[in-house]
């Protein structure tokens, strides 16, 4: 026998093995994809509209969007002045208050109410900074939702939202 024979045989074995491996990999696609959010969950995550008119100055309300708590805070003049007086560079996660609200709507802060430490829900209007206090591990946020003290590494995130009118926002 010439040396060509084993080469041809090896090629056949490698080709068979490769095709089988591709099949095994393709089989994993549905098995993995089925654990992602299904179509009804995605559809239920559509944007929601919130009427701001009933929210008094100094009041914070909690709504749910995509199963996440969203805090909407109607801030007082004092709270706005306080958070804007803090030197940005002194913050653990430096961000000016202006970057966390929408232009012309300085009184309205909309944040996802999930502590950036380990996912607990911070309590509104508590702690030393007129903002949020997380009961799990003591993280404290100011009235701009920025982390000021404690183990949380980042500010409370801002969800996607827009003002559809002066007294109505759409989240999502």
């Amino acid at each position, binding site marked *: 026998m010439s040396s060509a024979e084993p080469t041809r045989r090896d090629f056949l074995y490698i080709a068979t093995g490769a095709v089988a491996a591709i099949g095994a990999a393709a089989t994993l696609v549905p098995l993995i994809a089925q654990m992602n959010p*299904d179509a*009804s969950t995605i559809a239920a995550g559509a944007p929601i509209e919130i009427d701001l008119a009933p929210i008094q100055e100094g009041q914070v309300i909690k709504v749910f969007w995509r199963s996440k708590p969203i805090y909407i805070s109607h801030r007082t003049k004092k709270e706005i002045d306080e958070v804007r007086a803090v030197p940005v560079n002194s913050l653990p996660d430096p961000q000016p208050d202006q970057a966390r609200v929408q232009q012309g709507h300085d009184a309205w802060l909309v944040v996802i109410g999930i502590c950036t430490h380990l996912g607990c829900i911070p309590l509104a209007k508590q702690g030393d900074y007129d903002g949020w206090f997380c009961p799990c591990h003591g993280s404290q946020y100011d009235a701009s939702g920025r982390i000021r003290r404690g183990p949380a590494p980042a500010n409370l995130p801002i969800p996607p939202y827009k003002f559809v009118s002066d007294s109505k926002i759409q989240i999502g």
Partner: protein
Amino acid sequence: MTGPSTYQPRNAFLKWFERRLPILGLVHSSFVAYPTPRNLNYWWTFGGILSFMLAVQIVTGIVLVMHFTPNVDLAFNSVEHIMRDVNYGWMLRYLHSNGASMFFLAVYIHIARGMYYGSYKAPREVLWILGVIIYLLMMATGFMGYVLPWGQMSYWAATVITNLFSAIPLVGDTIVTWLWGGYAVGNPTLQRFFSLHYLLPFVIAGVVVLHVWALHVAGQNNPAGVEPQSDKDTVPFTPYATVKDAFFVALFAILYAWFVFYIPNSLGHPDNYIPANPGVTPPHIVPEWYYLPFYAILRSIPNKLLGVVALFSSILILAFLPWLDTSRVKSGNYRPMFRICFWVFIVVCIGLGYLGSKPPEGIYVITSRLFTFLYFAYFLIALPILGLIEKPLPLPHSISEAVLKKKGKAAKAAVATVAGLLVVLGGLLGAPTRASAQEEVATPPLVKWSFGGPFGHFDRAQLQRGFKVYHDVCQNCHSLKLLSFRNLAEPGGPGFSEAQIESLAAEYKVKDTNDQGETIERAARPADHFPPPFENDAQARQVTGGAIPPDMSVLAKARGFERGFPYFITDMIVQYQEAGPDYIAALMTGYENAPSGFTLPPNTFYNKYFPAHAIGMRPPLTDKQVDYPDGTPQTVEQYGKDVAAFLMWAAEPHLEARKRIGFQVIIFLIVLAGLLYFTKKKVWHEVEVPRELAHGQDPRATSM
């Protein structure tokens, strides 16, 4: 084969590990070095196929449990949620439901192979009995799994099968109540069946380990039925048996894929797409096909207790085979009289399966009794006597000798016997079909649907027209609860735009709660489901004059008509899956004046396609009733076809994706099977054409 392994890994870490847990050696001795008879034919690959199917069922089952809810109010809808919303959910569920059928198909071939080649005989009795136990566990698992979707067939299967135990004298009723956890099949029953359906496959896997262990102690039987005597009679399991098994698993997977992607509901019953209703039993109760022979045996005995005894005996008798068969010759190849009895037995089993699917009346009852007798006669009369009177053909001295000898005459005789019996069976199947045709329900004409066949896809314009018919007419009485408005814009559907969906949804009012906790009505959004036209069944009855209009979400899969022999077989080949839409389209045009002598009950209408003819729905459509702006004929016939197509999409929204992916899967499997075939040929080349003959060398010196 037994005793300590001689396997020694080369890698230092594996050596260290092997000294502490010799699992690699176990795998090596069981699945690599294990000597397997060199003359095994392809019937021996079904053990591997069964392992593959068990793995598929466990994996898909675990996935389905992630989305299924075992509760009488939620189970049916959660299965539909899997079919509609879960990513690839339809595929996973069809893999699982058709996987059960494939599993049983493979196990029946595996059992028949063992019976033909005498694999139950010494020293393999324990191996065989373990197999019977696996089969019993499979039956229990399959039955409980069938209950979980909580359709009509699920519910009534659960009722009928659990009632088998009520035949037990004195304690029967107590046992049945205990099985149910209530006074009838209900939520406790569903929940315990769910728990056990999850548990039993792992018990099966455990017994399979024992089965394989016993196999590896006794060694495999083979077509010659003589035990291996030297190394010349065997080849190592890997690569020889491994590649051969893999090739046949790939072929079997093509058949499996055919069912899953092209005819996924052909083995199921349409009634199981009707939610369970404890107040109404479907007119024809039949179990899944794999239980039909035993169901026929049960019904053939006119006494309740004896019927149940016959049913269980027909399965348990398998465990006694090693002692009922008195012949010492294993392989049917060398037993001319046994062979005829065996094939008669196979035909009897298939015949019982057919009879089990037929109503218990007339010729079917008598034939069932005859076949039940023949079934038991095989075990209790034929096998014990044959061993005493039969003169076996001369056995080969060794496997090697059997391999070299060409078999010819024997095979021809067997083929002739089977062919003759199949003709008999065909005649039997044909005759009853004519008898049942006398029920005089008109057969719906077959419509040429755009979504039929392997490359079928919906006609978007037709779906939109069909939706218009639903919207303008049907929805006044029929709900479409499982569909959301968003579905109408999803790929593979009628193809409405997002804007059209928004404005369509806004036409409907759905209930919600406002901030003050009051129930309000608000405009529907695309994510909402279609609101039902009636608050409840009682209100529906008031409005319609007695009838409850069925929900239309899965109606196209919940309806059909009897196709009869031989169509139920040819339908699998030509992929006829449109009995539902054909029936619905026909029903729309089937209203007629009742023939003289036919008394219509009050508030009903005569329809020639409706079973028993008296339908509670008044003729819903008239010509020109629904406006078609695109110039399509505005006739009842066209409306019927359009709404039937729309309902087919509503029942099977991923039909297009299913057929598209199915084509890809089958092409892939054909390529894989082809490659495995050539790999198998290469691997086996030196065994089948021994090198000592070709080149004067010892084959074993190079084949490893």
